[in-house]
């Protein structure tokens, strides 16, 4: 069986936790994020007939009050960066998190998720703003935690990239 640890990173309240809530097996309360700084969920999927378990470390949102513990990033095979499409500042946070992660564990397959697609009217994040962060991700997805749009595809893409990366 293949197991991969992935980290979900993003600014505070970008909807990381909501994004996975409908798709994962979870036994821990969301309180852990505010206490220990991480909550661990699991998502099983099948890629080319092989089962892969994604162990998702849903790290606490980065803001001026709390920052991501880089020790949690160790051993990660991939990352999902989440940006709130209605708040341009979250793009910047994603960029800084990317820098931090790469410094800590090196370059790993990464997916950029532009969340809150359902709030398109309030959309702030334009192509120009996104250009630098598009560079860091291997794929970009528009998602909505509310409708579930794009979430599966984002995880699948990351899984495939991680498998390719390790030659599995």
């Amino acid at each position, binding site marked *: 069986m*293949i197991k991969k*640890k992935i980290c979900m990173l993003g600014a505070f309240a970008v909807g990381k936790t909501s994004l996975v809530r409908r798709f994962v097996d979870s036994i*821990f309360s969301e309180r852990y994020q505010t206490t220990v700084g991480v909550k*661990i969920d699991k998502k099983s999927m099948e890629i080319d007939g092989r089962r892969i378990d994604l*162990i998702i470390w849903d790290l606490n949102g980065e803001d001026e009050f709390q920052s991501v513990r880089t020790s949690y990033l160790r*051993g*990660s095979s991939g990352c999902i960066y989440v940006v709130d499409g209605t708040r341009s500042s979250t793009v910047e946070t994603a960029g800084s998190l990317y820098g931090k992660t790469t410094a800590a564990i090196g370059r790993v397959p990464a997916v950029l998720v532009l969340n809150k697609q359902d709030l398109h009217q309030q959309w702030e994040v334009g192509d120009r703003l996104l250009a630098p962060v598009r560079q860091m991700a291997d794929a970009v997805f528009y998602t909505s935690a509310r409708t579930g749009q794009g979430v599966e595809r984002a995880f699948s893409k990351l899984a495939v990239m991680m498998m390719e990366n390790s030659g599995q």
Partner: protein
Amino acid sequence: MAGGMDSNPEDSREAFGLLRQLLLKPEIEKLAEISRRLDDPEVRAAEVGQILAAALRRQAAVDDRLCLALRPLIEKTLYNSVRKNPRALVDIIFPVMGPALRKSVSAAIMGMIQSLNQMANHCLTIRGIKWRLEAWKSGKPFSAVVLAHTLLFRVEQVFLIHAESGLVLQHVAAEGVSGKDPDLVSGMFTAIQDFVKDALGSGSELIDTLRLGNQRSIWLEQGRYAILAAVIRGTPPMDLRHDIQDCLDRIEAVRGQALAAFDGDTAPFENLDAELRGLLQFQARPETGRRTWLLPAAIATLVTLAALALGLNRYQENRTWQRLLERLRSQPGIIVTRAAREDGRYLVEGLRDPLAPDPESIKSACRAAKLPVDWRWKAYWTMDRPFVLKRAELLLKPPPSVRLLLEGGILSARGYASHSWIVRARRLASVLPGLAGYNDGQVVDQDLVAFQKAVQRLESKAIYFVKGGIDLDPGQEPNLDDVASIVRTLQGFDFPDRPGLNIAVIGHTDVSGTEKFNLALSRLRAEKVVSLLAARGLEAGLFNPLGLGPAGTGSESQALWRSVTFGVR
């Protein structure tokens, strides 16, 4: 050619040598060179030295024969070396042994502290007090009792975790244990480790124990690549810690490369299942869950109730027993000398007057009929007044016309009785115990009275004769019959304490005639009556005929004239 060689052997040997030189010169030179190298130890040593390492390596890769061959040599060398200079070996192994010893010693001290802590924890709890009582009763040291109770544990789950990613490489759980998703649990272990390390800045040191309440703990051992985590219920011994360490060491030794290269594929670790299951130990009784107290509690309750019932029963039985003893002790005619409870039965020993009431009836009377009592009585005669009287009544058997009384130790009889009873009673009373004397002065001897009445009747009788002769007056026959009848009556009395019956038959005359004649006549008349009575079937020997002569002249005496009267002695 064969013929040629025969003709000149010398020539042909030379020719053959020449031919050999021509044909094999390089080989011959090479052989000479080889021979020189083989003969020269210096050269050979240098050459073997060049290939020795490669040869050893190659042979070691093929099989174990080289190892087996070298082992005795190396052992012997080491042995000699240590004997010669132990210091050298100490220097060699210290870097390896030092940390190992430190780790071992610190683990032992930790173990000791742990048991001391347990002892301290249990000192003041109710359980602790119970255990103290147990120690006191059994004579064991308190620490031994604490250990006996606390060294019950069960390893419920074992996780082999990839240290860097926190991913589960292998997970085993004990029978009946259903844990949460091991991947998530393991991830959280790792996260918490990281969190604590970051928070305390403890560098590479690992949390080795997580405790959940009193009953659950997680023991963690970190190796170079992997973490072994054991979820334990109860309090395990420190030996378990060593087992976990050893297990992890073995895994890292065998799977070090796979662990270093781990990239999410857990397949290489799947067959570690048996190795990890070795850690699913338990000691004494596995804890079966929260309800385990139900059965012991139920048993304890039953035992308590039974004990209470038994106690109540014993209490009641004891009270009955005491009541019975009191009754027995207050009973005249019974003296209890020993009362005891032996082998579940009761025993009463003592003296009992045969006239005292039956002890079994006393037992029933004080509601102790069910009490199992064995009696051991010895007979005795009590001097109590009612007993003496009753005993006298039983022995003397007085007729209904006689009443017995006991006053001041003297037994008195009153009433009417036969002569034989009076005589017998007098004899028996003299031997009756508890009597100061016997008085039957107020018992009327009915036989004697009747006898005396008959005597009176006989003595009032007179048989009359004709004047001057020994012939009976006419009509005296019935009178004589009466006399015979009375004599027969008298004969019917038997007074053993009195002389035999003897009846005086006394003849009388009137005053006429001479004295001498009258005496003879009166005697003849008496003899005549005796012979007449004998003729009526009476024994002549009973009678004593006497002649008294003339009976005087007074009016009473005149009635006796010419008669025969009777007297009884």
